[in-house]
């Protein structure tokens, strides 16, 4: 019943060529394959696009058909055609943020993370590869969505709809601040996706991470509105949603940061969350 011991042969050496290229490059190509090969990714991206474009068009369309436009058009003197068409972003950010969370949390929930880290033990590189792939995909989808929402929305506004159609004309990308706002919406969606990735890395479990993301992106701005003035504005404007809104709103609102500052504040949110994510990912047992 006992095994006989065969004399140890010479240690095995493979005749396969040693891999070339950088660890990051290889990891990026793997992450690209990962993101394409699960259904939830595609669904999140479709939802992002559908919400940004679909809701943008729907809201614009509904707006021009409202009866009270006829009666009470003057109330809309602060009407902003770009803003109307970009309303879908408020919901689409949740879809793309969930995608960002899932890119990391789904690995923890399924156990895939152990295979991933065994294959790429350079954990920071693994996170960087995920950020590069997710960021690229989100940027393409985010930009395509926001431009489609804008262009379609303006076409709806410019179609001859009511007697007031001249008052609520669409604008074009060459109008002041418009290109910046539309591109800002795409950039904001990308940044929310990345924020989701960082939160998914910090919290690791999908339900907790998604709740945290919703709390930061949606609930926190609501809570700050309940603060006594001037704290509602002073605190609120630094939150991602309001910083982002500064990026994708044409008019510079007094309650919001300037677009440039908004972008910078979003960068700070990302830097902070990725710093924490990197520290935790390097330190924790998986």
């Amino acid at each position, binding site marked *: 019943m006992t095994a006989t011991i065969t004399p140890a042969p010479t240690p095995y050496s493979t005749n396969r060529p040693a891999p070339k290229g950088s660890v990051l490059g290889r990891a990026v190509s793997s992450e690209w394959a990962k993101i394409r090969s699960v259904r939830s990714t595609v669904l999140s991206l479709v939802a992002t696009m559908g919400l940004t474009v679909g809701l943008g068009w729907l809201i614009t369309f509904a707006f021009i058909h409202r009866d009270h436009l006829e009666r009470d058009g003057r109330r809309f003197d602060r009407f902003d055609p770009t803003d109307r068409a970009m309303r879908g972003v408020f919901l689409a950010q949740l879809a793309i943020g969930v995608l960002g969370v899932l890119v990391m949390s789904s690995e923890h929930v399924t156990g895939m993370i152990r295979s991933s880290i065994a*294959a790429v033990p350079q954990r920071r590189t693994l996170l960087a590869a995920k950020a590069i792939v997710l960021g690229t995909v989100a940027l393409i989808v985010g930009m395509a969505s926001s431009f489609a929402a804008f262009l379609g929305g303006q076409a709806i506004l410019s179609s001859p709809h009511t007697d007031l159609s001249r008052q609520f004309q669409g604008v074009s990308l060459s109008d002041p601040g418009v290109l910046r706002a539309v591109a800002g919406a795409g950039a904001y969606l990308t940044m929310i996706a990345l924020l989701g990735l960082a939160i998914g890395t910090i919290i690791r479990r999908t339900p907790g991470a998604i709740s945290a993301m919703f709390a930061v992106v949606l609930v926190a701005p609501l809570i700050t509105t309940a603060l006594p003035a001037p704290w509602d504005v002073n605190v609120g404007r630094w939150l991602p949603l309001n910083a982002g809104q500064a990026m994708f709103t044409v008019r510079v609102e007094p309650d919001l940061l300037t677009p440039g500052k908004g972008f910078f504040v979003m960068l700070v949110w990302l830097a902070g969350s990725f710093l924490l994510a990197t520290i935790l990912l390097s330190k924790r047992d998986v």
Partner: protein
Amino acid sequence: MIKAEHLTKRFGDTIAVNDLSFEVAPGCVTGFLGPNGAGKTTTMRMILGLDAPTQGTVTVNGKRYANHRFPLHEVGALLDAKALHGGRTAFNHLLVLAKTNGIGRARVDEVLDIVGLTDVAGKRAGTFSLGMGQRLGIAGALLGDPGILMFDEPVNGLDPEGILWIRTFLRSLADEGRTVFISSHLMNEMAMTASRLIVVGRGKLIADATVDEVVSRGQHWVRVRSPRIDELVPQLIAAGGTVNENDGAHDIRGLSAAQVGDLAAATGIALHELTEQRASLEDVFFEMTEDSVEYHGSANAHVAVAATTDVLAGVAR
């Protein structure tokens, strides 16, 4: 070559792995044996850099695992058949791992063929049985054609045919000169597959020896049957043996089979049985680890503990 030095892992107040030092050499199957909760999986996780040791170090081929740029070419491991995203097909699961280490699609097809999953390569891994998941995990370990292979409880969930397959397969990997390190809590399985054993209990090293050495540390005795046994027994006792009757046969300790046979021949007593008896590997394992299992199921644990000290004196380094 895997080398652990003073490897220790604490989880709060619990010590999962306690000052464990060992080497796993190439060219043979080394079994990593211990009861559930002995720290086998934690040790393997530390080898792969998934868990950080509280103290001590472990290296593979002279470097910490995480310091290998493309580690799948050095070490292939199966720790957990569930370490995958169930929504991906078997092929895609292997492909995303392969890409991280610059391994091509052709090799993915090759390893699927080796483990016999080619027909289900396009199915989602989440639909796999435990046995198929185990095979997929083994395929993943083989991707980089590594010199070191490490499997945690590889026969788990396999049917008898699968178990036979993996035994033969592990031996063939070792015969190619690879380092093969497999854990199990099943002694018999190890006896079939491994040639060296590293035995742990409660995170501590209990034995590091060949399977034969471990077995020889267990009790051995001579079993005798004879129609004139009553005449033989006094002579055996006089010669220094101890005799116990056991279900019609007599077990003699302290004398070799040759001595018993010579003694019987000298007095003209016919023997109907004269056999060497040895504690099975299973028995030795139980003796060695009984005081280190987390929860005792037996009432006579104190007897086993006494036996353990004997075994430990001989086997432990």
